[in-house]
């Protein structure tokens, strides 16, 4: 049995990378692969579902683990494990599964440091691994590594039901983001708050909600803007939250893929996002400013039948384009190249 070792900083609820690794792990295991996940932090949700181990990001620890457990593939998903890959010395293949890095200028205080990390990977990691995987064309082009293989994430891990028709009730509009103040600009929290306030000010009947990781203090600012706030929800609560929405918004200024946006569409919601990051690949509804978003929302509010039709087609698009079976097939194809050589 071939053995894959995934590496990531953490395996915790609320982090998209953890969801992706969790899905890859369980689905590859079903195909007969032995899969372990090495990380520095993890929670019980993932440790119950996958073979998660604590593994320090240093080459000696990883080499030793790989040698002891006959690992055939070491696949890093996040820093600092990317940086370790070229230093490993085993007879296994090394892959960098790149989820992308937010645009450094979104973080003025450590912009240069972030840019250095990005440059370091391009100069010192990608040239020295066997495969670079990018989770979207956007990431492939942004990391400037044209030979990276694009393998999209799937959406089948979310409960998929038929889109609901809301003909009379006020529209439920929601977002999903980390609520920490430091990420407001990047994730679009501040824009979302202003947007919701504007609707309230103009007495437009629409319900706004947000779900995400954060402290009660961090949730307060959303609540004050009239946004129904769900803090630190479980996967089940998240699923329920998505089910209750009519329209999902992402005002984030960078996303390597935006798993929640795809999850929302898969669960039968219309998803609208800014022309940033990988959004143009993952939703048909792209807006380039808040005015355009507002007009679109009002138009959909007025014409619920059209909203329903758009929602149905969005779900079809999403299920067709983003499914874990394809993700696994593409991964297996790359894995099999090496396996044949072995």
């Amino acid at each position, binding site marked *: 049995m071939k053995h894959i070792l995934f590496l990531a900083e953490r395996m915790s609820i609320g982090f998209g990378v953890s969801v992706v690794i969790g899905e890859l792990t369980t689905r590859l295991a079903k195909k007969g692969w032995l899969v372990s996940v090495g990380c520095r932090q993890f929670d019980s949700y993932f440790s119950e579902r996958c073979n998660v181990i604590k593994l320090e990001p240093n080459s000696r620890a990883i080499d030793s683990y790989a040698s002891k457990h006959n690992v055939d593939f070491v696949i890093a998903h996040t820093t600092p494990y990317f940086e370790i890959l070229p230093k490993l010395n085993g007879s296994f293949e090394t892959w960098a599964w790149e989820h992308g890095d937010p*645009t450094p*200028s*979104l973080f003025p205080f450590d912009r240069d440091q972030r840019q250095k990390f990005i*440059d370091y990977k391009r*100069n*010192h990691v*990608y*040239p*020295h*691994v*066997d495969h670079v995987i990018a989770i979207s*064309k*956007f990431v492939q*082009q*942004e990391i*400037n*590594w*044209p*030979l990276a293989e694009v393998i999209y994430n799937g959406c089948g891990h979310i409960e998929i039901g038929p889109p609901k028709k809301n003909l009379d009730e006020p529209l439920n509009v929601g977002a999903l983001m980390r609520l920490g103040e430091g990420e407001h600009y990047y994730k679009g929290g501040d824009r979302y708050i202003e947007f919701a306030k504007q609707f309230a000010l103009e007495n437009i009947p629409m319900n706004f909600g947000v779900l995400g990781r954060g402290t009660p203090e961090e949730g307060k600012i959303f609540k004050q803007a009239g946004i129904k706030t769900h803090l630190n929800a479980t996967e089940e609560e998240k699923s329920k939250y998505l089910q209750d929405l009519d329209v999902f918004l992402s005002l984030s*200024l*960078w996303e390597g893929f935006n798993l929640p946006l795809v999850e929302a569409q898969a669960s039968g919601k219309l998803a609208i996002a*800014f*022309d*940033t*990051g990988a959004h*143009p*690949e993952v*939703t*048909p*509804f*792209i807006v*380039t*400013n*808040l*005015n*355009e978003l507002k*007009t*679109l929302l009002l*138009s959909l509010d007025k*014409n619920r039948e*059209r909203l329903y039709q*758009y929602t149905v*087609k*969005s779900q*079809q*698009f999403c299920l067709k384009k983003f499914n874990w079976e394809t993700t696994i097939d593409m991964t297996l194809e790359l894995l099999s190249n090496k396996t044949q050589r072995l």
Partner: protein
Amino acid sequence: MKRNIPHLYKTLFPFMIIIKNINNYFILISGYICILQKINGLKKSQQTFWETITDTPQFELDNSKIDILKGWYSIQFYSETLNNNSTLYPEISIDYGNGYVDNENIALEHNNSHYHIQIYFHKSPVGIRIIPCRQAGLIFKLNKIKLKRIPLPLFIISAAINIYKRDTKNGRNFWDIIQEKLKLIHDFGLIYTINNLNTLISNNEDGLDWGVDYTRWISEVETRYHRNIKTKLEKLQQNSNKNNHCILIISNSLTDTNIDVSLNSVKNQLLAPCEVLILHKTSKVYCYSTTDKNISKKVVFNTWKSTTHSNIITLLKSGDQLSEYYLLALENCLHESPDCDVIYSDNDERSADGKRCNPHFKPDWSPDFLIESNYIGETLSIPLHHLKNFLYRYKQPIQFLTLYILYHFSQDNNADIKHINQILIHCKHSNEKPTPHNGNLAALKTILAKNHNTSISVKNDNKQYRVKHPLTRSLPTVSIIIPTKDKISLLKVCIESLLTITDYENHEIVIVDNQSIKSETHSYLNELSKNPLIRVISYNKEFNYSAINNYAVSKTQSDIVCFLNNDIEITHSEWLSELVSHAIRPAVGCAGAKLYYPDGRVQHGGVIMGIGGVAAHAFYGEEGDSAGYLNRLSSVQNYSAVTAACLVMRRELFLSIGEFNHKQLPVAFNDIDLCLRLREQGYSVIWTPYAELIHHESATRTDDIRRSNEIKTEVQYMQIRWRKWIINDPAYNHHLSLTIGNDFEYSLRQKNLSSIDARTSIDINPAQYPYLIENNEDRIAAIVTDEIKIRPDKKAEKPGLSIIILTLEKPELIEPLLKNLIIAKKELYNRKKINIEIIIGDTGSTSPEINSIYKTLISDVTIVRDLTYHFSQCNNLLFSEYVNFDSVLFLNNDIIFEDTINALYRMYVALNDDQKTGIVGSFLTYPDGRLQHGGVSIIEEGDSKGLCYHPGHGTVFKKPAIDSVIPIPAVTGACLLIRSDLFVSCGMFDIQYEIEAQDIDLCFQARRLGYQSLLSYPGEVQHLENATRPKGEENNQDRARFVRKWAVFYSEMMS
């Protein structure tokens, strides 16, 4: 397997390929069959026809079974279109091993029944593509393609006859023609002239780079830049952070007659300076302030320095003239880089009769080049605070102040020096040798004094210096790494010359044997390994240049590594000392040498990014003793890359930068990739003409075609990874040619760029790389900007029709259009009670005819003048400020209605007939009856999926029934009628589109909001397309933006 046609056969019997009748086959008379493959944008139509489904359909010749040799060929293309009035305009694209370069396609010329061209393959092509036309929706039959080799004598005779016929037709006499051609042969050499005869034949009409004359460059490229930069004048003038400019004319004496020349140029500035000074001494600190020719007052320089409000000082050498756009361009540059230290621009010279000549298209900041050969000149701009600092320290004559400043910054690794890539200075042309003067040298010596033991000497009639950097007292250890596989005759020359000629003492030679098989090789290597200076190590894996060298470096411990090809011959003893003296400088990443062919011609004079699609050697084939363009072949300088045929760098840096890229670049471009990574990290790459070696290059390359096929993925990797450098190499100049063999010739390539600071070019498909063309940072900036865009306060809801026309000059178009619209306005009110208002947005007309037209029509038309052209911004502004009615028609000024009254009425009715209709456009035709616009569609498959195209464009227009309408994804903004409230709901035209697609975006937005767009036929409407905008203004950023926003929506929701 490839069949080799016997060489004798190929020489004596030129071979011919004939593609017969459509389907897929080439039939070669010598019996070889080649397949013509469909690559892109084509589908079969009926049995024998092809239909183009994109605007870049392509066939590719599979030449894997035959060799097409270097030489002259005639290509003939016989076709017919289903519609006899359509024309194909085929092009040919050639891949010489570096991939296909779209903007180097060669158009075939029409000749009665077919298209043809005579073309020179400068080496065996790896691939040939045929682009039958640049139009989607065309149906054609491919009857025959002939590719026929022409023996050189025959070609020369036929070319000479063609050139002679053409020139005499242009009224030139026999002797003039002969003299001119002899001069060409004299200037360029016989072989070069023959190899470029096709350019001569085509009379430079096709935009090829070779031999573009400077006058043509001025008229086609510079005027375009002037037009674009002028559009920024108003914005820059109104900028609250505008700089205060002072021009300081530096002269030896107040009686210097050159001062007037400079002063006159200052007075013509479009952006006026705050003050103008003439400075003729510093030690005495007197200067004179003036605003015209007359000196108005005398001020103490020190007083001026402390009281002036100017913050940017332009030091202008007396006799130099500033272009009238100088300060405008400077202000624009400062707007983008407010904290830079120095700004310089390109310059040319003025001959005695005032004619402009000798353009100096300079590289971006190249400090090593500067100190050896001042390529910048003596006119530049600098912040006042810097000037004060320099003047405080500077004790030499004033005329050397500029050089002193430049020399100072050449030693500052953090200096931010900006280069405006435009001719903004005109210097006086002089054939005189510069007078020897110690001032320059003194200025340089003062600056370089900090670098102990740097020696400076004068050369080339005082035009250049030779700056020799010192080696450390204890020589750093050097490992010379030479990969090899057999071919010991070459290796022997290399090793023996290395051992006997090199004067650098502290080195070892590491020979890396990569699977040599010959016994004599092993014997020779065994013998060599007995030499204590030589180590032989084995790399026993398949050839991978990067991996071999990386492995070798891992087996060394020295301070410096020198990568050397085994076909290099050492001819000068000091080559290694020179290279090491640069490599040990902390700011230097690596250093490369000047390589010659055995016959003395230059093989490598640095690397220029972009030539041939990725990169090529500078000055390839140039005479060995040539100084090169701007002395670039005789001065140490900073290039973007150098070849690893001989490359020296610090070992530690090599390891920390990530070694050679053995994964993606096993065979080619690994040296360029390494250099660019060094440049990306802030290190400089040095090329020096003082390390001279012979490179027996051709001896090691026996199978170019095989090699070219192997490196296709490497080409692709380079083109994406280093795209920005390939498009615009900072060590070169974007006004110089990227055609192989034409480096440092003037180029027209900038005339196709959409804006003066366009970072993108036409070589990357926006549908495939929408995120590369505009990165996330730019996309975020667009969102933030959009949040403050204009929204109209008042509502345009009265029933009626507002007509908005943007116009510039063209009285012959706008006058009849307006007169007809005014008649229609009156008639439609009288007959149908439809209110009409006409709003003109003039974007800068100045002609008296236009003034007179406006004067007579002022009572019927709202005229808004002095707008700066931007389609979206101008139309949005006019709409927001002036529109009163519930329908608005956007019209180009080159639209001609056959029946204006009825056309307007029919479109108006079509818009209001159905509440679902949001937008109505019209079929538009050319004056010759061909279709100009029949709606816009989206490409649904292939590499260009998501891009827009105009179906049926150029075909003969079959008139539909009057009043007929058809739903269509989008219509052109040249004639677009929309509901006013919908226009507001859509946020008006999106101002982020610079040139194109804003109209299509509007239609798609309307569609998303539930409104359809209709294409109507309200009677004949002509569009003289491009009467207002130069043809070829395409903008890949706009296209990428459109694709990102709408490609998925179209495929999932609309198609």
